[in-house]
């Protein structure tokens, strides 16, 4: 299965992956609105402990613990085989957060319910937005 490979030696902590991710998952698809107005949460997170830095996101586990822990089937595998959240049913109980072995699910909001936010590997694109935006091949899209 093709996944985003994290090549930490190439990362320069530029955060362009996060900007691209926020834009891709925004209503407007506009960089400025996505980042400054819509307050979209990035599905990938750039972290730094100099000289190390890397952008981390969901590894789309085969036996994904988050799917087992979900109380109402919101967390599921889509037709591509990637782990995604149904935003219309998620209630934000954070049981997926409790079991995610990579710590890559964020706590978002959706009207009156909490909403688990995680990488969906950009279903509308052939190459995920973060990979395309990375200037340095610190993120690449390949078989893992």
């Amino acid at each position: 299965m093709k996944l985003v490979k994290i090549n930490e030696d190439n990362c320069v902590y530029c955060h362009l992956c996060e900007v691209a991710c926020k834009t891709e998952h925004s209503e407007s698809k506009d960089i400025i609105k996505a980042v400054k107005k819509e307050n979209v949460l990035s599905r990938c997170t750039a972290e730094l402990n100099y000289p190390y830095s890397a952008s981390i996101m969901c590894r789309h586990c085969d036996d994904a613990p988050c799917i087992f822990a979900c109380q109402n089937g919101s967390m599921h595998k889509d037709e591509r085989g990637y782990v995604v959240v149904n935003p219309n049913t998620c209630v934000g109980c954070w049981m997926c957060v409790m079991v995610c072995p990579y710590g890559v699910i964020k706590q978002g909001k959706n009207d009156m319910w909490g909403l688990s936010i995680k990488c969906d590997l950009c279903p509308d694109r052939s190459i995920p937005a973060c990979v395309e935006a990375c200037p340095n091949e610190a993120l690449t899209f390949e078989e893992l």
Partner: protein
Amino acid sequence: MKYVIIGNSVAGINAATAIRQNDTQGEILIISDEQTRCYSRPLLPNWVIGEVSLSEERMFYRRSDFYEKNNFKILLGQKVDSIDTKNKTIMSSNSHTIEYDKLVIASGANAILPKNISGIDLDGVHTLTNIKGAKKLKENLDNIDSIVIVGAGLIGTKMAYDLSKIGKKVVLVELAKRVLFPALDDYGALLIEQELKKAGVEVILNDSVVQLNGDKKVKEVVLASNKKIQCDACLLSVGVAPNTSFVDSNILIDKGIVVDDTMKAYDDCYACGDVASIYDIVLNIKRPIPILPLAAKEGFIAGLNACGVETKFKGGFAMNSIEIGNTGFISMGIVESDNDCVLEFKKDSEYRKFIIRDNKLIGVILVNNVEKAGMFNWMIEKGFDVSWIKDAFLNSDFGWKYFDKAFRVLRLDRKLKG
């Protein structure tokens, strides 16, 4: 091959799913004494106060076409009276005998009704572990101005907060010295207690209910301390006990149904979920751990073994995630210890606590900064040696950056399964 699954909730559904993934032809029959498709039990308090309805998909565990799509037969409203594991038959409440080749018992657990409380049969006494109990409480809600909730566990605490939120006068009575006793330590529980009080809940600790008074309907609750509380209703949430009354003597019961590491209870008979007594890898004992994530996992593994795909279950441990007001926490394993290495960090509303024995993580509490909780869950489950990284645990920004490179790359490249 005919598979029969007793129980139509999380464990049963996952068992059925695992079987269907490996046996497309076999007959799979799910029996339940309830009348609905599998629903989300953790949402029952929200349903009681009207935050979610049965017309919303989020209330259900699987979509409405799930049974048909997977070719599951389902028998609703049928209680299993007895099973005969020698002749491989089940007797249902309407005296039907059903034969099976493989049986999966996923009958769950029901609310404990404490026998030492007198007056428990009065009207207005509620429990809340299934939709039947929740419906009774919901329908009675307009007649309730004040309610006494007995037991400050997960259900009691959440329901106390939710009922207070919609304007009911709530008194929460707990036998232990703190709320959420096994899930939180003193300090963590205090943070939740403050949220409850802020919402208007009266919390009474170190006390228990001995008597319920009223003519037909409960009107007064008497505590062991002799304190009397007037009320219109009472919710009993002192814990759950496995539903094992129907099993025969071939099946060993020790708190729950005793299973081996393939979830097998007897020849061609498996048990999983809240009814099963499983290996607790933190406490090193066998016991039922009635939580949803484990029910799902156990159910799936029981299903795999039932259809011949041998898979081992390594065991589980207690874990909880709740939000009360502005305080959210996740806890795992044990929450206090006098004999182990304990690391603690408190700042503003954040609280982090780690318990380490023989260089292995056996307990975690995270309050108000929980997003990395699963990384610690993984360490507990794998018995990971934390001696070289534990110093970083107390950092609020704990993450992959604190691991050494070789390990980090292996994990993130999915070369180490987890």
